[in-house]
């Protein structure tokens, strides 16, 4: 009985946990409820993924109104994978927040952090699971509004400005998206994504459809921080509380990538996106600029959190590069990297958060000799950094491997060379950390000897272990990504 309601419960539980947390208020209880809600969603997402892998897509009619009239929650091989990533990241970050956020947020406001976190999780899960284009907008705004608040909780006053800038750009992005959906609704008369895709080919006038494609592309690209629409991201990730940076970098941009893929391949369709319009070429060009420029900017950062934020822009470039190939291998690489980068960057931000808490910041001055003061943290950052570069044996290698294969299959040797060459820039910025932590003598800003609290270290190391695990055992990630790519390209699931 309950199993049939899982698609709704996955979203409803964290959504309902938020007001419950506000009612309860006491920090310990608030923390417990939020963590339990995230864990439940993770469990439900795993069950859904298993069911989808066995029995094919699940369609859930919300309130028993049959689609396309009612809102449909549709779980298939692709978004089940995204659900697992989002709820998994939430479940890892929630316990981390117990100590980390308590140090950064006033105690009497802690319950508000937990409530907002639940809202953000519910919004992102809703974006991934819903089969209704307007419902997606509402969830997008729930997730975005919650993330503006979470970013504004940062200790530095610049967090406020970062949150404000993100609010302006995020709202413009969401509004562009809703304009695109409005145009699609006007020509098709439906909001159900599957129904929309079925009706679009019969639309006689292509012009509104092209306008809709443009609006959706720009709107979602703002949300996923595609170059040159990424300006909100570095400040937002750099000044937000570490738990928030970790969670958002692992999930928020990734869910937006999912939305872009869903619209490109699930609504507009391959012929329109690839043949009528030069979208792959545009994406390829922007991705290459994103990878090269953001990696170079990352090299010159003086703060580790900002460095990793710029590296996020570059890594998102690799994901969109895979989308731009518009081939089975390219999409597989994009979806795998979506997951692997989420895990890697989540681990990095969680570990940097531990440093920032003990040293009062993550500037390179306080990283000098870190390997002696916080050996486990330094080792974790190095290992996750290797995954960021794409060293064999780490998760990052798997994604880059498929990117290179995709490029070679398409006969684009230069692209394969570019992926390898830009990885060398990543070697550069990860090396800067290794040099400071392992080779430099401790300076006055180096924190005193002692690790971060185990409550923070354990979730972070769990993700570091995942970086390594998914580098060796690719059965879950690559199989899911292959299914997703086949689904997007309309092949057998």
């Amino acid at each position, binding site marked *: 009985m309950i199993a049939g309601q899982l698609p709704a419960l996955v979203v409803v539980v964290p959504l309902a946990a938020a007001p419950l947390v506000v009612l309860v208020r006491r920090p310990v209880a608030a923390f417990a409820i939020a963590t339990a809600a995230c864990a439940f969603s993770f469990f439900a997402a795993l069950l859904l993924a298993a069911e989808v892998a066995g029995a094919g897509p699940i369609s859930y009619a919300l309130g028993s109104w049959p689609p396309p009239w009612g809102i449909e929650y549709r779980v298939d091989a692709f978004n089940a994978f995204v659900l697992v990533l989002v709820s998994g990241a939430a479940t890892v970050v929630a316990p981390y927040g117990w100590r980390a956020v308590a140090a950064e947020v006033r105690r009497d406001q802690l319950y508000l952090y937990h409530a907002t976190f639940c809202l953000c999780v519910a919004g992102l899960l809703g974006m991934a699971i819903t089969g209704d284009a307007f419902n997606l907008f*509402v969830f997008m*705004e729930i997730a975005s*509004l919650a993330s503006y608040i979470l970013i504004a909780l940062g200790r530095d006053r610049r967090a406020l*400005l970062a949150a*404000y800038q993100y*609010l302006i750009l995020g*709202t*413009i992005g969401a*509004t562009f998206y809703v304009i695109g959906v409005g145009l699609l609704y006007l020509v098709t008369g439906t909001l159900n994504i599957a129904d929309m895709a079925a009706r679009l080919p019969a639309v006689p006038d292509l012009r509104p459809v092209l306008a809709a494609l443009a609006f959706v592309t720009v709107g979602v690209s703002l949300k996923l921080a595609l170059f040159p629409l990424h300006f909100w991201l570095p400040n937002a990730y750099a000044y937000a509380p570490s738990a928030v940076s970790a969670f958002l970098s692992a999930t928020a941009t990734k869910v937006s990538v999912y939305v872009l893929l869903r619209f490109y391949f699930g609504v507009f369709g391959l012929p329109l996106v690839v043949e009528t319009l030069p979208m792959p070429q545009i994406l390829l060009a922007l991705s290459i600029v994103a990878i090269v420029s953001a990696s170079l900017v990352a090299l010159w950062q003086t703060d580790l959190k900002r460095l990793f934020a710029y590296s996020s822009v570059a890594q998102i470039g690799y994901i969109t590069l895979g989308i731009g190939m518009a081939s089975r291998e390219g999409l597989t690489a994009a979806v795998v990297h979506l997951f692997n980068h989420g895990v890697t960057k989540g681990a990095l931000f969680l570990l940097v958060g531990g440093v920032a808490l003990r040293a009062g910041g993550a500037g390179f001055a306080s990283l000098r000799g870190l390997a002696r003061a916080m050996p486990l943290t330094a080792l974790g950052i190095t290992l996750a950094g290797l995954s960021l570069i794409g060293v064999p044996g780490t998760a990052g290698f798997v994604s880059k491997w498929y990117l290179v294969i995709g490029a070679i299959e398409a006969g684009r040797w230069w692209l394969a060379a570019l992926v390898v060459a830009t990885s060398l820039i990543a070697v550069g910025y990860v090396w800067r950390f290794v040099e400071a932590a392992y080779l430099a003598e401790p300076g006055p800003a180096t924190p005193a000897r002692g690790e971060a609290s185990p409550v923070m270290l354990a979730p972070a190391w769990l993700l570091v272990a995942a970086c390594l695990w998914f580098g060796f055992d690719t059965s879950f990630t690559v199989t899911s990504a292959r299914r997703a790519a086949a689904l997007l390209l309309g092949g057998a699931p």
Partner: protein
Amino acid sequence: MSAFASHYSYWVTVFLMATGLYIVIARGNLLKKLIGLGIFQTSVYLLYIAPGKLIGGTAPIVAEGFRVYSNPLPHVLILTAIVVGVATLALGLAIVVRIREAYGSTEEDEILAADRASGGGG
């Protein structure tokens, strides 16, 4: 000319859209940016609602003597969008209040200058 006259609601929509977006980009005052954002979002309400209305159409309640009905769905959608807009504006204003407390200004260039003066990267 007739296309212009019969589609005037679209022209109004596009004008509001462009005005709102222009204000967001061109103004340096954080409050004025939010006002522009509000206008921009409001234009979308019009984009949805205007095509849903039929001249002479009534609310979609089946009754004797009424044959033409307006589409109720856009109205419902926009009710949700208005709530989203209000929430965004409220949160935006709250952040501006906090920024003013922290920086003593709501002008973007002054705030950025204050950040540069305190030694942070921009």
